[in-house]
């Protein structure tokens, strides 16, 4: 059976349009969220010149080796490759098979392409869940967040966050200072230290006829830790959302290397969006998705897409959530274990802890509790300040605040 691919390719080559087709294919991959850059396209074209492109297997593998940079992209690449290059009639990229997956409303409000790609990757795995849940909760999802907050009737949510900007700012700064406390193993020259900088020693010794008159030192650099904040913005957390988001924004302002993720039944990275968007609009769009909180699934999508944020030597992970999880506790536990493996401390702030009668018996919370290093409430400024001081004192000690 004649390979349709060979026909397509030799046709394209004859028409001199193979290069165009490859470039078009690369843009297609990019629009589906794969990480492809311009230089990779050049490399891919150079690679094709070296191999026998009529062989389907070689063609496919060669493009994959030159273009891809992450293993997560491999399944998507295979599907897109098949639909693009195996098309008999014409190699048009506008097939129904290759339409971008449905994105939630959230992404249409943003302009940058990079925002879309982040969401489309995380949303497609959960879109089927959303469809089922949206049907049953279509009525309730139309309520505005303000109305829901009024219904909460939580006496602890009485602080008015708008007056606390200065206090939160201070807390953010103390967090930043607490995180900047680790020494790395890389030595750099310094005016005082424990090791002698031999190179500089030699230079100065030669100047003085071989006698080291000055001793230059080396010491280990201070490495600032990275902070990853996961903020639950589902409806159950609505009364605390303002305070916690402002807290996250304050930390973001003062500390370097902070990543902030919002989740409800989907996960979104908002670390670079604080400056150009009003944060209240972020949560409004998010809660429109409806359904129960999927903590496990959201964190799993973090592990799948952003796990590079976690570097065990340098990272502190903070989860701001009430632990009411609609998903499986076992999967939440497994995901948390993975996150904990990639960070030196896992902190869980649960505002419900401040209510006197609360016990963490909800399945999700109970499953997560043994893995958490610091479990605290974080429902108001004082408790947040206490967390900051805990970070200052002993980053690796396990206790309850």
């Amino acid at each position, binding site marked *: 059976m004649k390979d349709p691919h060979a026909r397509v390719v030799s046709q394209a080559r004859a028409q001199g349009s193979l290069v165009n087709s490859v470039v078009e294919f690369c843009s297609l991959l990019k629009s589906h969220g794969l990480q492809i850059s311009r230089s990779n396209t050049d490399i891919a074209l150079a690679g094709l010149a070296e191999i026998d492109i009529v062989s389907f297997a070689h063609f496919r593998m060669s493009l994959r080796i*030159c273009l891809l940079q992450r293993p997560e992209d491999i399944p998507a690449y295979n599907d897109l490759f098949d639909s693009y290059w195996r098309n008999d009639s014409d190699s048009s990229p506008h097939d129904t098979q290759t339409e971008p997956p449905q994105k939630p409303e959230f992404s249409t409000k943003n302009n940058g392409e990079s925002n879309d790609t982040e969401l489309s990757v995380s949303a497609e795995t959960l879109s089927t869940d959303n469809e089922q849940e949206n049907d049953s909760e279509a009525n309730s999802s139309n309520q505005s967040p303000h109305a829901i907050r009024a219904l909460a009737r939580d006496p602890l949510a009485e602080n008015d966050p708008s007056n606390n900007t200065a206090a939160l700012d201070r807390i953010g700064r103390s967090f930043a200072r607490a995180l900047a406390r680790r020494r790395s193993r890389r030595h750099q020259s310094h005016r005082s230290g424990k090791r002698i900088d031999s190179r500089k020693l030699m230079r100065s010794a030669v100047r003085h006829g071989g006698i080291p008159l000055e001793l230059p030192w080396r010491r280990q650099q201070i490495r600032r830790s990275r902070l990853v904040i996961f903020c639950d913005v589902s409806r159950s957390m609505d009364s605390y959302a303002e305070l916690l988001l402002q807290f996250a924004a304050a930390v973001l302002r003062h500390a370097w290397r902070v990543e902030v993720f919002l989740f409800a039944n989907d996960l979104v990275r908002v670390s670079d969006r604080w400056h150009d968007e009003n944060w209240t609009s972020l949560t409004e769009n998010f809660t429109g998705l409806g359904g129960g909180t999927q903590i496990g699934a959201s964190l799993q999508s973090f592990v799948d897409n952003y796990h590079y944020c976690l570097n065990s030597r340098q990272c502190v992970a903070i989860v701001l959530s009430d632990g009411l999880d609609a998903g499986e506790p076992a999967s939440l536990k497994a995901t948390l274990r993975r996150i904990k493996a990639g960070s030196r401390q896992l902190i869980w702030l649960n505002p419900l802890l401040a209510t006197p009668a609360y016990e963490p018996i909800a399945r999700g919370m109970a499953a997560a509790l043994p893995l958490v290093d610091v479990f605290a409430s974080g429902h108001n400024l004082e408790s947040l300040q206490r967390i900051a001081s805990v970070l200052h004192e002993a980053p690796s000690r396990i206790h309850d605040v």
Partner: protein
Amino acid sequence: MNTIDSIEQASAALAARGYVGDEEIATALFLSMRLRRPLLVEGHAGVGKTEIAKVLAAALDTELIRLQCYEGLDASSALYEWNYAKQILRIRLDEQSKRDAKETEAHIFDEAYLLERPLLKALRHPQAPVLLIDEIDRADEEFEAFLLETLAEYQVTIPELGTITAHQPPFVVLTSNRVRELGEALRRRCLYLWIDYPSMHKELAIIEQRVPGIERNLAEQLVRFVASLRECDLDKRPGVAETLDWASALVELHVDHLDAAVATASLGCIVKTRRDVNWVRAELENLLRAT
């Protein structure tokens, strides 16, 4: 020195040296050599990433130069360093013999006092060597930036000796365990190869290749056991290296059939943490039933 001129030759070269690979690995090696681009090999621990570089060096009949990365690795440990102790001694001796200071200075920054580290060795090698940069994800971002600079031009400037350019650029293979995500710039520079755990057929072929004298039935049992083990939630999933260790161990013990007693006794070959050992012991019946 040999060359590899086609994908088929690459496949043949891999097979000839006992590396059970697939078309993709051969294609990646071929492209990396022809395009003169470094090859970034990522995968889980123990799937044979480092082996690829060794086999490539053997196939090309050239030297393998290995740079093992760790956190805090810097240019002086990777590129070159002066032998300071020797230099100071020289200075003192010259001072005793009343030599001119300028002459001393010219003398001590000489080849004899230069400690050549792997990167410089690779650049100065007369024949293009295979440069294996192992576990690049354990090094930090500063080292990545330094490496990128060196790999871009294949030349290095030593202030006292001048600029040293590679006669023949080395074939660079980088391996990573995905402990940390590598920088964008380094990724863009390299070709990418992801090596996943092998399929059962492939793993069987690898065992038969590397552990001659093993019974076919036993090998099949091992492969099925390990395959089902990899599906489970372990702290450390066993790689191909662990399977091979286990196979060799069982051959040494003159075992021809896998049962509960043998498995429990030799569990240390494939599971490496206490939690995993306890879990596997508890699930042993189910796992053995699957074989």
